[in-house]
């Protein structure tokens, strides 16, 4: 360990050599190397976390670069996990970095998470968030959670006991996944580039505090930040009971659980339908503005066979019927490329 590299934090009261050694010995897994994952990785690598794992199956895209500042223009098209590992080892050759260019899924979750002390949820979709929540609960791993929406962020530390021995998870906030269209991701809703930077740095800070034992962590607390009005709120998360029957309560059950289906099927009236079918199948009830042809035009009929969407309908006060399109099972979040969701909202509101 090069002491000179870390001397500015070694000299901190309450941190010192002991704190640095705890970081050096730590094993930390970052799930998702996107907006949240980049700052998390950059600061934790720089801080001297001894063993960092990165798991992400995504490739760098031009529209990532305004917020994922670990990557540059020459990285476009390359795997994020691999590019991140290559850059981080240059930033700090003292540390070990392992990476997987794959998606965290029920089949690999326990194997990937098991060797690590702390897991960071830097994902961008509910299927992986609920998978991580359940897997970390079952493995009793601390989970540092971050999530963002446009100008607002949420932060928490799950599965870590407070002074009363109480632990909570993401299920204590949201026991059941939402309809994906209720909370669109960055592709669909947009995001200010600095937001994941701020939330990711908070996550990295909580991880350092957790590993070194300094300060007070956000255990059983949910912190929210709003960049527009600088509003910061911290909510207490009580350990309440909820229905546990609908999701896996053992690692064996988790392995076979379909989180993508689980997160996409929260509404009973959902049905799978292709765009080609939308064009040829009459919509139930009055077609008018919401005819299949109109929908197909709205989302781009140039690629009618390319995507399979789940379609649901419900009554609204204003126009009688709202139709939501949701992404295909293979694409659990967002409708990419971005922009179509916005067009859609305008058309049907």
């Amino acid at each position, binding site marked *: 360990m090069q002491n000179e590299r870390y001397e500015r934090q070694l000299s901190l009261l309450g941190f010192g050599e002991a704190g640095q050694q705890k970081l050096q010995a730590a094993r930390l897994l970052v799930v998702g190397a996107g907006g949240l994952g980049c700052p998390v990785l950059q600061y934790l690598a720089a801080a001297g976390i001894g063993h960092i794992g990165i798991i992400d199956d995504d490739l760098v895209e031009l529209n990532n670069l305004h917020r994922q500042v670990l990557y540059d223009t020459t990285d476009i098209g390359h795997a994020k996990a691999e590019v991140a590992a290559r850059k981080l080892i240059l930033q700090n050759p003292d540390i070990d970095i392992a990476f997987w260019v794959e998606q965290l899924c029920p089949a690999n979750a326990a194997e990937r998470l098991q060797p690590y002390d702390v897991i960071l949820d830097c994902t961008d979709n509910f299927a992986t968030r609920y998978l991580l929540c359940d897997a970390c609960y079952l493995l009793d791993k601390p989970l540092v959670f971050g999530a963002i929406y446009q100008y607002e962020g949420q932060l928490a530390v799950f599965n870590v006991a407070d002074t009363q021995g109480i632990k909570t998870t993401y299920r204590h*906030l949201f026991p059941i996944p*939402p309809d994906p269209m209720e*909370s669109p991701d960055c592709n669909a809703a947009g995001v200010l580039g600095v937001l994941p930077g701020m939330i990711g740095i908070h996550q990295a800070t909580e991880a350092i505090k957790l590993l070194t034992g300094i300060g007070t962590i956000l255990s059983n607390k949910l912190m*929210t930040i709003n960049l527009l009005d600088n509003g910061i709120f911290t909510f207490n998360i009580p350990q309440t009971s909820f229905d546990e029957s609908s999701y896996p309560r053992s690692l064996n059950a988790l392995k076979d659980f379909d989180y993508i289906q689980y997160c996409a099927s929260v509404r009973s009236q959902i049905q799978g339908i292709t765009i080609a079918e939308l064009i040829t199948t009459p919509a139930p009830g009055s077609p008018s503005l919401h005819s299949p042809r109109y929908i197909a035009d709205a989302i781009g009929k140039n690629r009618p066979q390319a995507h399979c969407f789940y379609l649901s309908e419900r009554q609204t006060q204003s126009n009688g019927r709202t139709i939501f399109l949701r992404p295909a099972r293979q694409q659990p979040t967002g409708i990419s490329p971005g922009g179509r969701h916005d067009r859609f909202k305008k058309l049907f509101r």
Partner: protein
Amino acid sequence: MRIQVKTFGALTEILEREFYVTAGDTAELLTTLSRQHPDLAHRKLLVAVNNTIINTPVDLRENDVVALMPPYSGG
């Protein structure tokens, strides 16, 4: 009881970010808001009263602050 409601995330597309409303308990509050805004009825929301998250209806007192927050998926 006159209470203050604060909303977060995509909920601000349906409700004002901050407003005052009259309700005796959180169930009545959510029923009233859902009636006024049918889009709310199916939403998964976190409800907090005076900065503590609740999952069963809670009586409200004058000047209580109720936060309504959806989950965020972005990362």
